[in-house]
């Protein structure tokens, strides 16, 4: 007989805030600068320097708090957290400890069965990032401090997640929120969005938590899922084998597919926190909160519901569009220019997204206005759907407006009865065999004749006018033959 276990998981997520400057100095935050180029005496931890707080970072943290329903502390405190490491220039990290800026929030996640659950957030605090250590094969370590001092928020969840799948759902929902707010680019490769997991297991039905381990070094959603799954099984194996779980920090080894010990509880740092004497308390006024609230970006969940309700889109299409913040603005701009949301959505999701990465849609050759105009040209029958694809190709490759393409290539649809009749008569004359077969009852050949008309005209004829004209000129076919 075996005991059934359940996992208890809490996540700590570090989001690099998308500010222009670092948290405590004016150095730029752009990724990819030459080594140590984005540094100054302050982020190098030179003697005599003092930190001065970045207002934009504070506003971004408050935005996160508003979106996640946190209590915003009127007075929060920065502290120093001490440990020696070469990528930590001052020998301490400026962070928030006893009184963080944000506490007690919640994040709604969607489970596999479509149910929603709110995961509690313990706290969100502001802190500065460390630099990067590059370990060389020679044994030496190289230190690049470009990243040192980047603003971060650390979002700490309650231990309310029960599986790796739930953990990933939480992480994806959080990822979406911070990207929607425009406070984090969410780039996991570049480390802008990082996650550590606290994992323990306990027999189902028991209230007390088991001993937990902390897992670090998970760089993809998939990695998070695999690492947590692995760790849960490892815990169960150890316990079922009569062993005990040791409280420790473990590193996820993506290639090996397992976690391994990084440091034990006995080696845990004594961080010697104390309030940062170089920074006044951070006092946040109601006016600041209200002005941020008034300009707060809409969150993805609310936006999806609005897209279904107001634009009549399917839940699936709404999901595709709102899955990427850059598509939302594009879509809504196009709808303003031509209020056919479904038509625009179809062209955006099936054609444009088929050719261009979602993130690059706003900077592609096809502007929202141009796409809207293309759909408008279809809707007013200036061109038909087939021609529209040709027009779209050219728009995408050249950046021309749809009207310019239509005019330049003479693609305007022909609806005039006389002009259509000329083409139809020409096709009837050129295909006597097919015409007689049709008249004797082979009705399927009508499609062939329509096709010929379109081919001869370069696709420009209005299909329904062609149909009507053919019917009229061919006369009724024999029936029952």
């Amino acid at each position: 007989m075996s005991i059934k276990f359940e996992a208890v998981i809490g996540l700590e997520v570090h989001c690099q805030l998308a500010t222009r400057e670092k948290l405590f100095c004016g150095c730029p935050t752009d990724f990819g600068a030459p080594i140590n180029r984005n540094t100054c005496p302050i982020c190098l931890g030179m003697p005599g320097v003092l930190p001065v707080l970045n207002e934009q970072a504070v506003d971004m943290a408050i935005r996160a708090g508003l979106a996640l329903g946190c209590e915003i502390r009127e007075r929060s405190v920065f502290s120093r957290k001490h440990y020696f490491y070469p990528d930590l220039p001052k020998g301490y990290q400026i962070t928030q400890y006893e009184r963080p800026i944000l506490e007690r929030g919640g994040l709604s996640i969607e489970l596999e069965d479509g149910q929603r659950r709110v995961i509690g957030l313990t706290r969100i605090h502001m802190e500065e990032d460390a630099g990067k250590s590059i370990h060389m094969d020679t044994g030496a370590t190289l230190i690049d401090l470009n990243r040192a001092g980047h603003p971060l928020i650390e979002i700490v969840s309650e231990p309310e997640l029960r599986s790796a799948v739930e953990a990933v759902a939480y992480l994806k929902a959080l990822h979406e929120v911070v990207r929607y707010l425009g406070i984090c680019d969410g780039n996991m490769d570049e480390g802008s969005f990082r996650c550590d997991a606290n994992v323990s297991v306990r027999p189902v039905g028991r209230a007390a938590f088991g001993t937990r381990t902390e897992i670090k070094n998970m760089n993809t959603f998939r990695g998070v899922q695999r690492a947590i799954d692995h760790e849960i099984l490892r815990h169960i194996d150890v316990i079922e084998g009569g062993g005990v779980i040791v409280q420790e920090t473990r590193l996820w080894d993506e290639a090996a597919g397992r976690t391994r010990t990084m440091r034990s509880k006995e080696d845990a740092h004594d961080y010697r926190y104390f309030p940062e004497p170089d920074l006044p308390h951070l006092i946040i006024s109601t006016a600041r909160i209200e002005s941020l609230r008034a300009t707060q970006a809409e969150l993805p969940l609310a936006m999806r519901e609005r897209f279904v309700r107001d634009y009549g889109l399917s839940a699936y299409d709404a999901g595709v569009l709102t899955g990427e913040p850059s598509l939302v603005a594009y879509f809504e701009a196009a709808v303003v220019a031509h209020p056919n949301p479904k038509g625009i959505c179809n062209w955006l999701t099936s054609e444009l997204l088929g050719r261009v990465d979602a993130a690059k849609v706003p900077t592609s050759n096809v502007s929202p206005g141009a796409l809207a105009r293309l759909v408008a040209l279809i809707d007013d029958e200036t061109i038909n759907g087939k021609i529209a694809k040709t027009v779209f190709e050219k728009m995408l490759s050249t950046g021309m407006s749809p009207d310019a393409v239509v005019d330049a290539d003479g693609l305007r649809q022909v609806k005039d009865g006389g002009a259509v009749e000329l083409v139809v008569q020409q096709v009837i004359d050129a295909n006597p065999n097919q015409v007689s077969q049709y008249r004797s009852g082979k009705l399927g050949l009508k499609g062939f004749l329509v096709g010929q008309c379109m081919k001869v005209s370069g696709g420009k004829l209005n299909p329904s006018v062609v149909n009507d004209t053919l019917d009229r000129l061919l006369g009724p076919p024999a029936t029952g033959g």
Partner: protein
Amino acid sequence: MSNALTDYSLCALRDALDRREVLAVDVAQAYLDRVSAHDPVIRAYLTVDAEGALQRASEIDSNRAAGGPLGPLAGVPIALKDIFLTKGLRTTCASRILEHFVPPYDATVVTRLREAGAVILGKLNMDEFAMGSSTENSAFQQTKNPWDTTRTPGGSSGGSSAALAAQLCAGTLGTDTGGSIRQPAALCGVVGLKPTYGRVSRFGVIAFASSLDQVGPMGWTVRDAAALHEVIAGFDPQDSTSSDRPVPTGHSRTPVGGRLDGVRVGVPTEYFPETGLTPDVRLKVTEAIGKLRALGAEIVPVSLPHSPYAVATYYVIATAEASSNLARFDGVRYGHRAKADDLLSLYLRSRGEGFGMEVKRRIMLGTFALSAGYYDAYYGKAGQIQTLIRRDFEQAFERCDVIATPTSPSTAFRLGERTEDPMQMYLADIFTISCNLAGLPGLSLPCGFDADGLPIGLQLLGRAFDESMLFRVGCAFEDSTDHHVRRPPSLQTGGVVTGQEAQS
């Protein structure tokens, strides 16, 4: 006349330069000559920047000749405690760990002095990282007290006080965390002001204890200190703890012979203990208080009951913050790096070799005070007692406008006398520490000499941001005494010129 250029007080020199009676290059050269002649004995300077000083002085002279804009200290030769970062000029904090450190930027106060036209002669000795009361903790040299070269000049700004007393600069800046401006000023017979916490920017000043450190001026006279204070004080966007309150101005031009009618001078009983205060200090400070009464002040007894806890409170808070502030000296990005094959050894050895004994002692104490399980009992408790000490002063200042005490319980002690007993050394700061814990301004000025001819300092403490009151009382006292113009006989100076003589 027998007066040399190096006999002019800062204000007198400023005025003579303004009137074009003297040239800045001549003044700078006179000081450099005097440094060459006397500093081999006094040993106040760690770095002399003769070239930079002369170049700057000649720029000032050219500017003046051309009628260009000139700052309020144009051509005045200043020296700086080696704790202030000077761009391109070695800054050591008197520590092996920074022996070859050349800063890439200027401290805000250095920028302000430069903009005011000051000529920077060089950098002055101090206790390593400002930790000490005798300048014996310098890693490089022992500065002597010009009044008696077998004695300490005080500390940690002992290079500053000695350089002033020996007329090796016209004015200087120090830093004061627990008395490091006022105590050496007292022991060398010069004036030192620790301004209110937040009054002067700390940006570019190597930190000892961030919540207690304050930059302040030191000079021959109260007016000299006021002239420097006016230039360096005021809000700095690079120091979030600096205050934007208006800076008192004009005190360097206070008319001679001011009275103190209506001023209430508080005298705290706790600062005149039965033991631990030498008889000469008690006598001279008591006489000074009598002088204030004679000038019209009302003397009121006050009590600062938590004073006995100040030294203990201070040594917890200051060392805790120091252990944190000195963590950056790790041999990775700058400073001394020991030979080591692995990272942990690199840290242990670089810091082990780079820091002196007193610095290590304080880092150890501070690290312990912040460590897991002890924080509340030490750092937390000390912070609470700091509040009680601050409240004592708030209550006292309801009854008086300024508090008068001795600056130091004794005059200059002999070199080596207290180096073996750190606790004895710490108690030298017993009268200066509370002022830092309460964040208040404090001024030390000469008020007489003991039987050995060693100077004694009177300390005046004021309300937060009320440096004006200290300048007012200090000027009135100074105008009615001559302690500040006396000089060690061995120096054979021509007699100090303060510019106030003609008026008095």
